[in-house]
């Protein structure tokens, strides 16, 4: 697989125009995740409404893969139940660790399937997972705060 093919149009589009970017109020939890080897950082907020993800807002610096992936993630999880969103996180993570050998499900992952090519570049897998991990962490915290 060529590097050109890995950088699908979808990824570059999301890089150029990040969806749901910027920090918004209110929020139930806020986390910072970092890829220490490269310095990519994301500050991410999650707001829940009952068990639905009402909003995800973020400020991120990093490569096109991490930025686009965060953008795609926000599209996918906003408006979904936390359970469904976390299931998507599972599915996306599994795809990224498949070394590109999994057949991703476009019905569930939508634009996320563009990252299947990235899964063939082990050095970049972490980039694609940064925003997703931050979301998982923040969602868990938001749930916990709610319950306590």
């Amino acid at each position: 697989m060529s590097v050109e093919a890995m950088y699908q149009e979808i990824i570059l589009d999301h890089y150029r125009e990040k969806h749901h970017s910027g920090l918004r109020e209110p929020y139930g939890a806020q986390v910072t995740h970092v890829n220490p080897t490269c310095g990519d950082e994301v500050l991410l907020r999650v707001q829940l409404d009952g068990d639905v993800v009402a909003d995800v807002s973020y400020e991120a610096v990093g490569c096109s893969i991490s930025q686009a992936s965060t953008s795609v993630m926000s599209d996918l999880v906003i408006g979904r139940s936390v359970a469904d969103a976390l299931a998507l996180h599972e599915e996306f993570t599994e795809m990224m660790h498949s070394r590109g050998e999994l057949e991703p499900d476009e019905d569930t992952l939508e634009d996320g399937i563009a990252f299947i090519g990235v899964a063939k570049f082990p050095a970049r897998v972490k980039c694609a997972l940064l925003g997703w991990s931050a979301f998982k962490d923040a969602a868990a915290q938001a749930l916990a705060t709610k319950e306590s």
Partner: protein
Amino acid sequence: MSYDVELIRADFPILERRVGEYPLAYLDSANTSQKPQVVIDAMVDHYERHNANVARAMHVLGAEASAAYEAGREKVAAFIGADRADEVVFTKNASEALNLAAHSLGQGLKPGDEVVITVMEHHSNIVPWQLLCARTGATLRWFDITDDGRLDLAKAAAENLINANTRIVSVGWVSNVLGTVNPIAQIAAQAHAVGAVMVVDGAQAVPQLTTKVAESGADLVAFTGHKMVGPTGIGGLWGRHDLLTELPPFLGGGEMIEIVRMTGSTFAPPPYRFEAGTPPIAEAVGLGVAADYLAELGMADVAAHERAITAYALETMQQLDGLAVLGTTEVGPEGRGGAISFTLATRDGLDIHPHDVMTFLDSRGVAVRGGHHCARPLHERLGITASTRASFYLYTLEREIDQLVEALAYTRDFFGRAA
């Protein structure tokens, strides 16, 4: 296939060396082990084809080097029986691992707190704790030994050695002088009962015994590459994941950070938090192959060979008039490892100093160590200043023991003649 020492020796190029007219009998493996060709070759291949810095480099060579480095970690973790690879921190040797333990565990210590070690420890498991106690005002306390060279657990109990003030207990798994195998699980249980952390110096255990750190009772275990047919320049600290996650960093620098700001820094999760700077990359590759080499021989067989050769040595050596073995002479899984330290005297009772023994043995092709073996308090406890140590490993032959015993008899008689 059964364990064939002659076949195994063919893997170790250095064992073909001769010393003058004598074949080399390398009986100093507790000091450092020799290296099989596969370990050397793996490092050569790494340098010739895959060398790059790890983690920070994401180009082809960087990805190869990073994968090789982490594969080394996984092999070592599997070999020592860790639950997860990220429980293994690479250090430069066992000494650094123990210093890391002392600094990271000891950061909050204060006067009144107690650290417990034993009188049979290697200096590397003594001095870091002495320095820690000097820094913090904590008190260092010691397990004594019995006359046959075992930890004196009864005396420790009577003295209430491990008590509510105990914060850290650090004990060697296998003594590098006496060969004693210490009851780690039992001491760990005592330590845990009072809320103390159990550190184990596994430098001599990991090469010889089937090691299952996760089931050992220990919270942290130090070990070193060069004693387990691996390269110099690498060692490790295994730690329970939840403990490592809590511990503050020790050395600061590249790779161990999360975010560095002028106002302060945050740190990476373990194991990276404890690996500042460029790690021993080629060495991790070599150590991984060393672990695989040992695993393929089978550690049960390696340990059985060690017991057999030690039993043979104890039996033949003790037939020498004037030779006295330090510590226990029971062999067996709970008995002793493959290091035999001893003193030697002429028939008329003149002590032959270990240096003199060593020099004579060396001239007859036998490599042993003479001195306090980095365990001066133990020697002082035994009332001597030095001893001679013969130590064996997976490649040791009975014929080398015979060569040792002959050379010892010759030495004794040479010094005896001078009477």
